[in-house]
């Protein structure tokens, strides 16, 4: 989908008028060169993300989901093309956009308490008085359900709790966009369900755009307002689906909807077929994991 930002759509032209995208990818290309071989992950990818949306990126393994998120975040440069955030070109991580890593154990600061970690997210971008910082930390620690754990160190917390700390740390600076890279892939199924509820609650409560990378189609359907399904590396967007399931979403009720099953089926079968055919070439020629993709 190509979105022009310079010429804003006149009101009433399209019904409903597409809002100016908060994130825009303009002909983004990414080529990894390793051992003299080039691997094209994206070749002129163009798309826009509407403010306030919850967009999940799914796709077969090695398709560049995480790489896409890294490029949008400014952590990794694109080979060609441009990423724009709030109408400014992204060169390095911009203010107002925070990345939540898949590997929370490696992203949390082990020498800081829960409060210390959360406070890092607050004070990193602006100066805040000590008293205000304390109050805000308390608020966000409670938001992610860690009441009473403010003075604990990461080693004293379970994996799910550590990821909650990382989420609170990301949210406290009130970013416009939260980028989440398979944030729940390393926790057990029940913890994941609880964390999914937490993210839904946060998205409902705060005016925030969430870009969410996952390999779990069910998770994407449950959470998202839109799903971008990437094809195999270099082939771009395979499907772009609006998820019109009613809100508030619910772990039990939403999953029971026939529409949920239909959407899940449609997306899953497309990815599954790609994974299956993608497995056929000899291993030496297959791209495998993206160099930029965390495992």
């Amino acid at each position: 989908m190509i979105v022009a930002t310079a010429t804003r759509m006149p009101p009433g032209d399209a019904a409903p008028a597409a809002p100016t995208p908060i994130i825009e990818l303009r002909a983004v290309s990414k080529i990894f060169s390793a051992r003299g071989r080039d691997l094209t992950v994206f070749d002129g990818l163009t798309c826009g993300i509407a403010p306030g949306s919850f967009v999940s990126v799914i796709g077969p393994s090695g398709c560049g989901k995480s790489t896409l998120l890294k490029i949008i975040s400014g952590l990794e440069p694109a080979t060609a093309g441009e990423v724009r955030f709030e109408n400014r070109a992204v060169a390095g991580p911009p203010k107002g956009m925070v990345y939540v890593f898949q590997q929370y154990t490696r992203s949390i600061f082990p020498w800081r308490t829960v409060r210390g970690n959360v406070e890092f997210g607050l004070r990193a971008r602006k100066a805040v008085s000590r008293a205000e910082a304390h109050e805000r930390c308390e608020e966000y620690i409670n938001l992610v359900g860690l009441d009473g754990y403010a003075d604990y160190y990461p080693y004293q917390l379970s994996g799910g709790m550590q990821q909650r700390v990382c989420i609170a740390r990301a949210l406290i600076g009130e970013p416009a966009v939260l980028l989440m890279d398979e944030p729940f892939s390393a926790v057990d199924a029940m913890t994941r369900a609880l964390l999914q509820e937490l993210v839904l609650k946060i998205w409902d409560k705060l005016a925030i755009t969430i870009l969410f990378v996952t390999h779990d189609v069910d998770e994407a359907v449950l959470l998202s307002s839109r799903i971008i399904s990437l094809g195999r590396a270099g082939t771009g967007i395979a499907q772009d689906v609006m998820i019109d399931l009613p809100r508030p979403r619910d772990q039990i009720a939403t999953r029971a909807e026939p529409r949920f099953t239909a959407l899940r089926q449609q997306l899953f079968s497309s990815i599954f077929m790609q994974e299956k055919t993608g497995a056929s070439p000899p291993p030496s020629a297959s791209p495998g994991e993206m160099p930029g993709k965390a495992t």
Partner: protein
Amino acid sequence: MTRRWPGFLLIAVLLVLWEYASAEKLIDPVSMPRVSVIAASWWRSIAGGPLLHAILPTLGRIFAGFALAVVVAVPLGLLMGSVSLVYRLVEPITEFIRPIPSSAYIPVAILFLGIDNEMKVFVVFVACLFPILLNTYGGVRSVDPVLIDTGRTFGVTRVAALWRIVLPAALPSILTGMRISLGIALIVAVVAEMIAGNSGIGYFILDMQRVFRVPEMFAGIFTLGVLGFAINFVFLGIEGRLLHWRGTPAET
């Protein structure tokens, strides 16, 4: 401490055996006096002053040289670990100087700095420098890139990240380097005192041997053992406090 009693028991048994062997003349009681005799002369040397006055200069040299080494090696190690040009510039010199035993610098240091404190502090400084430097840049280079990226996503600049992320993440490794250095510092300080000057435990031990006051000589050696143990004990305590966030006791 309670779990370490077998080790202390062994020490006691060995001392009793020594006492017995020396008293029964199974070993030469002149060059290996009885433990009780050594203990008595230790007490006289400490209470009377000569040994007590020897401890302070040695400790002073160790800590002065060590502190200087920390001040130089930690920032340099941080730079080497995070700026590739600095690493490539300094690393070959480091690898060349490092294998030279620090005691080999003593003659040179005497030429330039004389036989007093300056020379000994300098030699301790050189000896302490490399373990701290190597462990610092090793620690910096093994800081998880995800941690750095986390800082970047919060807008932490490279320079600010050195202080806020790299230093605390590399701290366990830096402290290991410091602990190794302290052990070496004691060795080098004593050697330097034996070679030149007229103060410190090294000088005391050598002096007592020359005038054939063997119990006092042993008293000096035992004092070194106690001193080394005490320094390590205190440092482990500091290390444990600084690294309590790891949740495991510091390795010994």
